[in-house]
């Protein structure tokens, strides 16, 4: 029970630990926090134009009724795998586009509710995966290697494991 009582303090506790560790090694704590905030603002500014371009597209897609249709089509498969049908669009976008996946996840979580099973599952899926094809393209082209060999199938195995385990653990914890 103590775990449940004190769990909400984990995040502020972590911040305190970070401040203590930095203070002990002689860093300027306040300056580090503001430098971090500046980096966070830069990240936000970097993704904001993509969000502004993609939110209308995702909203339009959602309003068109296509995702429900897709969800219904994929539902037998997703249900067998134990994955909430609402997350279908996120699963399709996640490996391809980071900001597209963020837009889709925001839409799913806003509609299903942040504390609903589907909303939580979408957040966990987003938090435990990467933009697979983008990463593969960046690394192989930067290294000047043409053949990606077994990288794509292995990375997709990891993604599939991510979807299945996210759906399973969320159902076990909050289902």
């Amino acid at each position: 029970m103590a775990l449940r009582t004190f769990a909400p303090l984990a995040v502020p506790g972590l911040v305190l630990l970070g401040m203590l560790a930095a203070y002990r090694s002689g860093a300027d704590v306040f300056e580090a926090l503001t430098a971090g905030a500046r980096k966070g603002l830069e990240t936000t500014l970097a993704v904001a134009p993509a969000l502004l371009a993609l939110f209308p597209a995702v909203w339009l897609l959602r309003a068109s009724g296509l995702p429900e249709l897709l969800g219904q089509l994929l539902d037998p498969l997703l249900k067998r795998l134990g994955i909430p049908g609402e997350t279908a669009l996120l699963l399709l976008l996640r490996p391809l586009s980071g900001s597209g996946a963020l837009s889709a996840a925001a839409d799913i979580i806003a509609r299903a509710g942040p504390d609903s099973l589907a909303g939580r599952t979408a957040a966990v899926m987003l938090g435990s995966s990467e933009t697979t094809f983008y990463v593969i393209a960046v690394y192989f082209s930067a290294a000047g290697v043409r053949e990606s060999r077994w990288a794509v199938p292995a990375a997709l195995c990891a993604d599939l494991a991510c979807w299945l385990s996210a759906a399973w653990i969320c159902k076990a914890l909050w289902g």
Partner: protein
Amino acid sequence: MGPALILLYALSLLAAAALGREAEAGRALLEGAQAALPFAMQLAGGLCLWSGVTELLERAGASALLSRLLSPALRRLFPRGADDPETLSALSENVSANLLGLGNAATPAGIRAAKGLKRLGGRDELCLLVVLNTASIQLFPAGAGSLRAALGAASPFDIVPAVWFSSACSLLAGLGAAALLRRLWR
């Protein structure tokens, strides 16, 4: 991205016409555009706070500590790359930046490591590095938590243990698939 967006719009318009959702679709575009900026601002709060904590941890020497802790694992996963000090340091920089959620630092280090592995002839090790980077190994899911906070979750970071579980499953599946495929691939 261009053709994909055009396809997305075309499919949406077709579906809206076919499913009788013209009115909703007509409103959706502007609603989406208006929602984007408030959402980005909401998200910024969480991202800035967590970037600050990451900065604190970095200045306390967390990256160096992680690199030391990771060294034995990296030597096992990348025997060829680990023989070259420069590649090994790029590898450990990449993995520790990923663990701390420093995407901006992880990619340049990862690319240096990828070039090193190519030079050393580690074709399988290069694939493994890429697979490792496509699996999210971030210790603290700041983005997903901030997203939940922005959308009004009661306790945004209560998903952390679930994210750890799912990340671990994904990483193990990636490593397992890599171990299997590198033997089968010709």
